């Protein structure tokens, strides 16, 4: 397991995709989304948890997710978000775009020559 100082910063524009993916398996409250990202990435991605909420509200405005108040596991009132049909379509588009990006970057990195020597 990587040490805490080896955490990676979240790439610009990927937060929406991670949130949509976290909701793909069912409704979640904001804290649940943060916990899912942390555990799924094995604590590699460093997400300032507060930044999730403006993103959730923005996605709600765009119609990708819907929010409803419900009861949490700790028996407290919590706001649950769930994917809409538009959100699922958006998630597919974002995953496609991400995979194309990763393939393109991989092609660049696998090109022979110009290898960087380890210090």
């Amino acid at each position, binding site marked *: 397991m990587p040490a805490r100082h080896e955490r990676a910063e979240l790439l610009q524009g990927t937060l929406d995709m991670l949130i949509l993916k976290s909701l793909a398996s069912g409704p979640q*409250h*904001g*804290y649940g989304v*943060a916990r899912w990202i942390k555990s799924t990435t094995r604590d590699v991605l460093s997400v*300032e*948890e*507060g*930044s999730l*909420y*403006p993103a959730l*509200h*923005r996605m*709600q*405005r*765009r*119609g990708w997710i819907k929010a409803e108040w419900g009861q*949490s596991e*700790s028996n*407290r*009132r*919590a*706001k649950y978000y769930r994917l809409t049909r538009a959100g699922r379509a958006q998630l597919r588009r974002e995953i496609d775009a991400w995979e194309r990006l990763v393939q393109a970057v991989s092609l660049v990195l696998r090109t022979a020559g110009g290898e960087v020597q380890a210090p």
Partner: protein
Amino acid sequence: MIRRWLIAVAEYLRTPPSALPREIGASVTEEIKFHLHEAVQEQVEDGVPEAAAHRAASARFGDAGKVAADCYSLAVADQILCHRVHLLLTAVLAIALGAYWAAQRPAGAGVADRMEAATAGTLAEEHDAWTGDISGQVVNERAEPIRGAHVLAVVKTWPPNGYRQQAYMTTSGPDGRFTIADVYPVGRQYEVQIATVADRRTLQSSYFSSEGESLEPVVFRLEPTPPLELRIEGADGMTVEGAEVVPHRRLDSRGQDHLVYFQSADPIIQRTNEAGIVRLTCYRPGDRAAIYIRLPNREWQTREITVPPSGRTVVLKMNQRKDGGTS
């Protein structure tokens, strides 16, 4: 996209504006509190002291105040936009209604006001174009001028979408001439009826119909007449004092018809004396005469007679019902 806006509009219409900031603020605050509470609880369950757990949860969360403000702005953005559109549409509607009301103001008034305004406008417009004069001379059988003859004119015009009939009166001057200025529209259709009535002279009239040209001066040559004495009686045979009498028509022995329009007859109304007698001096013996008569407080009635030789009194028995009637 359209669906999202429909939802936003529905949300806007459903939410009272005063409750919106309070509701959204409370919702965002509760959501953040829940997050921090869960984060602290998880740490505490892992054995972290509560104070340290609070510090760690706050550090991971970031600036809660800024997060709340950002969430609030995003949540109310649609509402604010809807509210601005609402205000804009209301303002546009108010301006449009105001402009429509200003443009249609006469139509907004009652029917009478609308007709009055339209008529006034039409008459004012028409009057500007009315430069036609009625002029002429009244003379006797020797072509000598008759002074003080009543000249009674009625002008008929057809302003846009209407018809107008206006009466004018004057008297002839020392040279027998008369002028009634600016009473018909030169260049447009008009008709003029002119009658002259002078003491001990025949009633004469002329009628002119024009499609636009100016009216030439008219000469009325009035013949001398003896007075026609009328005695007005009620149905009970009693003479009536104060009955109003107006010569209306004279059909002379040559078959020529001369008329006084009732509308222009005011200056020549006469009243019977205490003996119920009135003398009309505009008919010649042998003329057919139509005469308007009104008993006091009654309606106008018409009587037709053949004018008898001079010196005879014609007795006219009048209906005394309120509604007048003719015989």
